[in-house]
Every structure is written in structure tokens, then in C-alpha cells.
């Protein structure tokens, strides 16, 4: 390995890191919102919407993220919906991640004992108050390990955005390999950069899991 090359390529990777982080952070944030909305609708058993959400969750979890991304990026323009690559990547992660988050939240919401709902009702709390003051605070603790696991998963999945020519970490590594054949240096930097993002998150996840289990 040529260490001087690492210095040469470092700035490219730092720029790419910004793309990976933007897409991941945007996607994760939207996924959490989508997941929360979906799980609350399911908890309240809102007719029709509940069935639609169940179908959405199955589709999002049982099709590859790459197909979802390509459908959004190459397919939707055919019906006049043209999205910026970054927007497209974020929507894709939100679509995929929303379903995973919804499942994590649902498991946590279902773990809240029924007596909590009943007690809140007896105390005269409305359905919304019960949710925001009684159920969600308890469920969120439960959901944290699953949420962190999904965060790791979504950062990993963000690597597919190189497929729609977004210059993320994967894209830069491939570029260096293709242009200069500096494979060793490119792969080394690639692994280091992903490790820098993912190892801390995953360690936090492990610690949380131990604390809550």
C-alpha cells in the first residue's frame, strides 16, 4: 500500500462522506417519521389505512432497495415525476426504512401493557394524550435497540445510491479503482470511512440492548 496516495485521496473521501451522511441522515430522519406515523395508525386500527400500511410494509421489506431506488429514479420520470438524485435517494431510504421502523415501533408499542392504556383512559386522558404522555415514552425505550439497528442498516443501504451516480463513498472508491487502479488504497479508505460511521453507532446499539434487556 502506498501511504502517500492515502493523503492524495483523502479529500475526495471527505467530500464523499458528506454525501453519504446527508443521504443517510435525511433518509433515517424521514424513515423515523414514516415509521412513527405508520405504527400509530396501526395501533389505533384506523380502518383502510391500517390495511394500506400493512401492504406497504410487506412490499418495502420484501423487495430489494436497489429496485426501489431504480423505480424512483428511472421509472417515475416516465409519469412526469423527475426527482433530484439526492431527493430520490432520501425518499428511497425513507420508503425502505419507514417499513423497518414501523415494525420496530409496533413491537415496542405492543409491548406496552394494556393496563397502561386502560389506566390512562380511566384518568380521563384522550387518545392523543394517552399516546404522547403514557404510551410513547414507554415504547420509545423499548424501541431504541431496534431503532439503532435500523439506523446501521440504513447507513449501509445508502451505499446503493452510487448506482444513480451520486458521488458517495462507494462511488469515489469505484472511481479511483477504475481510473487509477489504486485498488488497495481506495478499498482501505472505503472500509475506514464506513467503519468510522458505523462502528460507534453499532457499539451504542449493543450497549443499549444490554441495558434494556
Amino acid at each position, binding site marked *: 500500500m502506498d501511504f502517500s496516495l492515502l493523503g492524495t485521496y483523502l479529500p475526495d473521501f471527505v467530500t464523499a462522506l458528506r454525501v453519504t451522511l446527508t443521504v443517510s441522515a435525511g433518509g433515517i430522519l424521514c424513515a423515523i417519521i414514516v415509521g412513527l406515523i405508520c405504527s400509530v395508525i396501526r395501533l389505533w386500527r384506523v380502518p383502510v389505512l391500517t390495511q394500506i400500511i400493512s401492504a406497504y410494509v410487506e412490499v418495502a421489506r420484501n423487495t430489494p432497495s*436497489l429496485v426501489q431506488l*431504480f423505480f424512483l429514479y428511472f421509472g417515475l420520470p416516465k*409519469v412526469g415525476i423527475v426527482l433530484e438524485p439526492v431527493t430520490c435517494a432520501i425518499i428511497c431510504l425513507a420508503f425502505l426504512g419507514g417499513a423497518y421502523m414501523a415494525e420496530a415501533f409496533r413491537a415496542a408499542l405492543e409491548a406496552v401493557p394494556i393496563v397502561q392504556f386502560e389506566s390512562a383512559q380511566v384518568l380521563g386522558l384522550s387518545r392523543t394524550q394517552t399516546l404522547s404522555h403514557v404510551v410513547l415514552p414507554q415504547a420509545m425505550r423499548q424501541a431504541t435497540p431496534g431503532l439503532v439497528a435500523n439506523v446501521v442498516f440504513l447507513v449501509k443501504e445508502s451505499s446503493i445510491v452510487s448506482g444513480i451516480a451520486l458521488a458517495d463513498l462507494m462511488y469515489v472508491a469505484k472511481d479511483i479503482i477504475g481510473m487509477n487502479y489504486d485498488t488497495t488504497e481506495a478499498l482501505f479508505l472505503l472500509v475506514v470511512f464506513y467503519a468510522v460511521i458505523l462502528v460507534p453507532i453499532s457499539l451504542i446499539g449493543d450497549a443499549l440492548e444490554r441495558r434494556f434487556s
Partner: protein
Amino acid sequence: MWDASFLFNGNTIPRLFEGLMVTLRISLISVALSIPLGIVLGALYTRKNRAIHALMWLYLTFVRIMPQLVLLYIVFFGSAKWFGLNFSGEAASIIVFTLWGAAELADLVRAALESIDQSQYDSAFALGLTRRQTFSRVILPQAVRRMIPPSVNLITRIVKTTSLCMLIGVVEVMRVGQQIIDFNRFDYPGSALVVYAVLALLYFALCWPLSMFSRWLERRNA
């Protein structure tokens, strides 16, 4: 836009089917290889030996934390550079999905083995069973039952993830889909929409039954 008649032109459907077979071949070979490997690795991981444990931890952590696409790049581009091994895209994919599947499975094995209550060991000893009998007659049957639902889920994850193989040049169902889109670009400008919807449907048809099966097993065990 939703004109899908081009799907029935020429050999479009047979080509998609061929691509699907490549996807299935990569998935099934990887699953078949990762099952024995994963069980061995998982059993090793529960060993008390510090060195083995550290080594296993390093392997599992690395393989499970890196995006699968990074692993594909390492094997596909790295082995050519470092060892002069020019794997075909398909061979590289099978290697990666085997190593990754084994790592994921090893973790499931470990979790299942560790989830068995200490009282099960104690009771077995009290009944006069040897260590080997305890493991094969008491612990393993319970662990396997807990392991199977997430393992079936792992298969769907492997099938879905093989779509990444197209990014290292494997002509599997995704790539065939792209070729069909390119071929019909001028006569059917809306083909991308239809083809990706069809691809989603194909993957869904493969993965959804497995997901349902996994959930059914889980509910039955609970």
C-alpha cells in the same frame, strides 16, 4: 406509460426468466454453503477460548458492519489486485454472500444457544446426562427451534441483496431488466416504469412467501 405489451415481444420473458435463474443460483448456492459454515462459526463463537472468541468477533463484526456492496468490491476488485485472482462477478458474489450469510447465521446460532436457560443445563446434568448428551438432546433441539424463523428471514435478505451483483457486472435479473429497458427505449419510452415494477413483483414473489413462513414459524413456537 403503463403500456406493458413489449414484455410479450420476442424473447423478453424468457430472458427475464434466465436472469431470475442466475439470481436464484447465486442465492441458493450461497445459502447452501453458509448454513454449515455459519453453524460451525456460531458454535466456535460460544467457546470460552479467548483467542478464538476475539477472532470470531472480529470476523463477524467486520462482515456484518460493512455494506454488502463494500464486501463485493473487496472480493471482486481486491482479489484481482492482491492475489491475481480474476473471479467472475458471479463467483465473487457467491463468495461474498456465503461469507456474509455465514456471519449472520453464526450470530443467530450464538444468540439461540445463549438464550437457552441455565436451568436446562443444570436439569440435564442432574438427570445424569453427559455434556455431549446435554448439548445434542436438550440444548440443540431448543436452540434450532428458536433459530429457524430468523434463518428463513436471512434467506430473503440474501435473495434481495443479490440485486447488488449487477453493480459488479453480473447479468442477473436486475441487469436483464436494464437491458430490456435499453432495448425498448425508442419504441416504448415508458418501459423503465413497467420493468422495475415487474422486477419488484418478481422479488416480492420470491421473498414474501418466505417472510410469511418465517412469521408463521415464529408464532407457532411462541
